[in-house]
């Protein structure tokens, strides 16, 4: 009898080209997403060594990190900031020179790489997919082995369609129970990161399993896999199932005709075999969680909304204590402050973590018939042209605008604050993005990570608040 294999083992073995004596592997990469921030130097490298792209059609180039999200934005040539404009122009020029598929800024297909990959059916179960972006883990929601790479590796994939790798270890996180009302996939993954820590997954690929994961929509699974990197693991995985196939059916790059059945048949062989063993197992029940919110400068610094800012003096490890003290100083928070008392200046709904249609609906449901507090600036940035169009078809844009939110064009926006959407020094946000690092949303900016409904609730209340108090009114 053959040894039971995990989902990761199967994808790995199906892509293994060569193993050296020292254990170094060469694996095949099926798909690559390319954006403007981490690719220019890779194309330069190709030019310098007179190399071409091995399989142009295995890539999609799209600008997202550094695009303006101003309503009614023009084309690349209308971008005021010269460095940003040039960076976008260079992406387009490189895509043309190397004959790669390219989506321009105002195309309806444009959006955040991790939103458009699935939308286009470019992301599929069983594929290996990379991008010069750590949140590539998102695509694992489809049972794809997807991880972030650096620019040297972007170049390596362009030139050879392969990567030099060592196999990761297998971790399984089984999530039991049902998500309580008011909680979302975002709260689930924040709770997981809080439990295993920001380096808990280093060296592993994490497979998410259990009834609570099965229950999630594809959007919810993407949110969970997206933040896998915040737990240190390069890739997250969810076994493909009927929901996955349903989502992919009919997408532009999904298999067509007889190949669809053939693909589904293959995809059904991918889930981990019964009896598979893992190097590490984590089991948790989420039935009792409450909406989560971060207090510090690492995604692991999270508590329930009804908790208080933790006290470093109650921590025995001196390194950890010092790091907490530094975080609290940066965040301008005192231990013991109720999280609900924390005033916010800006609210951001968007990012590759939470900018899909389900996120838009969840935030709009809270915003409907309410008003953004006069002290708050709140923005909603859909993840792609298609998400924006769908939301507008459903009237969500009107709900947001009537409530006082700014309804913007697709891009990464204030998640990493490259494009001018940012916090000013000392300003505080409730943000649906993925990182609360120092300066992430602007130098001196202070970030509290939350779910879309919690962000909308904070915008209305003017401070962090329990969305369940609003929705129960």
């Amino acid at each position, binding site marked *: 009898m053959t040894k039971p294999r995990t989902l990761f083992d199967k994808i790995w073995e199906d892509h293994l080209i060569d193993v050296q004596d020292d254990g170094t592997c060469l694996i095949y990469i099926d798909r690559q997403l390319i954006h403007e921030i981490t690719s*220019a130097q890779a194309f330069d490298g190709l030019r310098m060594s007179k190399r071409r792209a091995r399989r142009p059609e295995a890539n999609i180039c799209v600008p997202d990190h550094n695009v303006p999200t101003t309503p009614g934005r023009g084309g690349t040539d209308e971008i005021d900031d010269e460095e940003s404009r040039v960076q976008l122009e260079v992406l387009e020029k490189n895509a043309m020179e190397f004959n790669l598929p390219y989506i321009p800024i105002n195309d309806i297909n444009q959006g955040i790489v991790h939103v458009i990959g699935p939308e286009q059916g470019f992301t599929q179960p069983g594929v290996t997919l990379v991008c010069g972006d750590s949140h590539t883990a998102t695509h694992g929601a489809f049972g794809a082995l997807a991880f972030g790479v650096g620019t040297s590796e972007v170049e390596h994939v362009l030139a050879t369609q392969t990567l030099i790798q060592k196999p990761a270890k297998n971790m399984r996180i089984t999530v039991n129970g049902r998500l309580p009302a008011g909680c979302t996939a975002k709260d689930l993954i924040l709770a997981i990161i809080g439990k295993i820590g920001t380096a808990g997954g280093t060296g592993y690929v994490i497979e998410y399993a259990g009834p609570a994961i099965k229950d999630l929509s594809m959007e919810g699974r993407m949110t969970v896999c997206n933040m896998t*990197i915040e737990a240190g693991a390069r890739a997250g995985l969810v076994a493909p199932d009927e929901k996955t196939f349903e989502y992919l059916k009919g997408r532009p790059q999904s298999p067509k005709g007889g190949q669809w059945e*053939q693909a589904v048949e293959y995809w059904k062989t991918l889930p981990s075999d019964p009896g598979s063993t893992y190097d590490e197992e984590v089991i948790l029940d989420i039935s009792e969680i409450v909406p989560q919110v971060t207090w510090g400068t690492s995604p692991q610094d999270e508590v329930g909304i009804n908790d208080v800012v933790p006290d470093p003096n109650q921590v025995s490890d001196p390194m950890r204590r010092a790091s907490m003290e530094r975080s609290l100083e940066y965040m301008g928070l005192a231990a013991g402050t109720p999280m609900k008392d924390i005033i916010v200046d800006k609210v951001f709904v968007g990012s590759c973590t939470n900018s899909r249609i389900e996120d838009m609906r969840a935030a709009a449901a809270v915003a409907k018939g309410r008003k953004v507090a006069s002290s708050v600036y709140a923005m909603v940035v859909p993840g792609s042209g298609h998400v924006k169009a769908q939301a507008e078809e459903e009237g969500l844009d009107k709900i947001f605008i009537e409530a006082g939110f700014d309804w913007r064009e697709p891009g990464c926006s204030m998640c990493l604050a490259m494009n001018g959407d940012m916090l000013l020094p000392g300003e505080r946000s409730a943000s649906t993005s993925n990182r609360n690092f120092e300066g992430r949303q602007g130098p001196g900016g202070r970030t509290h990570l939350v779910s879309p409904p919690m962000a909308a609730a904070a915008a209305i209340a003017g401070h962090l608040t329990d969305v369940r108090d609003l929705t129960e009114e």
Partner: protein
Amino acid sequence: MEKFDTMTGVAAPFPIVNCDTDKIIPARFLKTLTRTGLGKSLFDAMRYDPKSREENPDFVLNKQAYRNAEILVAGENFGCGSSREHAPWALLDFGIRCVIAPSFADIFFNNSFKNGILLITLPQEEIDKLMQDAENGANARLTVDLQDQEITRPDGSKVSFEVDPFKKHCLLNGLDDIGLTMQKVEKIDKFEGKQKAATPWLYR
């Protein structure tokens, strides 16, 4: 890529845990189109006063003893967060060729080796000793010998370290990964032929 065999240099103490790549190089500096010139923005938020842009005199790399540091002794999970290769580019452009820490984030780890930066993982108790050495300033230089996998402390005592044999080979010889992989092009061709037959929907 520049070869790395042996180096002797000033080690700067950087006892921060979970130092993320946004801290190493904030996103607003990623509009560059080259790999060079990022050294001046390394650790920007800690290194400069946000308003005046003057150097923060308390930051380790602004202190006279460490201005020419070539080694960092750091806290656990160094380089977590974003995949930006600008992080190792900024370190290298500043002059850092080696980082020693209890652990590193995965993507940063790969990115660094591809740019000729040696990352050394050691148990916390060894880090504590080297951190102590680094605290002693410019006279306390460490020698890192990749071939023998040994760090020589200022008192002459040695600390040995592990390194992946393939990464060591590439660093010692300054090898270009792509060139190495190109030598396996027949295997890649063969793989694609086999994959195209088994999963034809992946080919258009």
